[in-house]
């Protein structure tokens, strides 16, 4: 478990953010900054690949709720894929799944989001 890393790519009109490491406050802020920068440019579809993030905390996840709120203004979308069971459980307990979607993998997320 070490520092939180992200790699970003754009696929059609979707920004895919792949994370690596513990999603805590610092990790959450990193994701939020990336989304902000893209939203300024008018992008409003984000897919976060959490395959390499098996540990999260509620502060990091709360920041995702902030992103969801911001996206509501432009009818944007936040989605996730490749969640570890405990991360999926956490998202469910917190109710994120009412406002954002979990996909099995990047392919499934992309084909649905960019449709």
């Amino acid at each position, binding site marked *: 478990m070490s520092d939180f890393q992200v790699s970003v790519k754009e696929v059609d009109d979707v920004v895919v953010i792949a994370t690596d490491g513990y999603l805590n406050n610092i990790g959450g802020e990193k994701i939020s900054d990336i989304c902000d920068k893209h939203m300024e440019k008018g992008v409003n579809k984000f897919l976060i690949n959490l395959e390499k993030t098996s540990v999260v905390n*509620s502060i990091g996840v709360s920041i995702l709720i902030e992103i969801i709120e911001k996206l509501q203004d432009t009818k944007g979308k936040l989605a996730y894929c490749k969640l570890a069971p405990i991360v999926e459980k956490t998202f469910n307990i*917190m109710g994120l799944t009412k406002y954002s979607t979990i996909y099995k993998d990047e392919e499934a997320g992309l084909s649905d989001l960019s449709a």
Partner: protein
Amino acid sequence: MGTSPKVELSIPIIPDMELAATQTSEVVARHMGLGQDKSDEIKMALIEACINAFEHSKTEEGQVEINFTIEDNTLVIKVTDQGVGFDENTVKIPKIEQKIKSDHKRGWGLQLIKELMDTVEFESTDEGTTVTMTKKK
């Protein structure tokens, strides 16, 4: 090793120090034969209990104690700080519908702990807080 092995951890408030606790719970859970799902639930609850003590206790001592005991088929975890304490009954149950619109997005830790563990108890005075949580095999 007795019948009730004990692991005691005293950690300072350092960023990510809660991960020392989760690694410990993982080893203990494996030793007890708990499955990966239960072990992961314990880790998540432990992270939340630790960061609460880190953030909210305002402990001057600067240390948080974590104790693990295995009692029969149950893992008992206590997280103790010597901080200001709080009244659990004044903490609102978070709802995503409200959080989405609110400036205060946080407030999920206690809820997560309760959902993820089998039992959770808070003892809190103005001399500190102990969260006791258990998970059955």
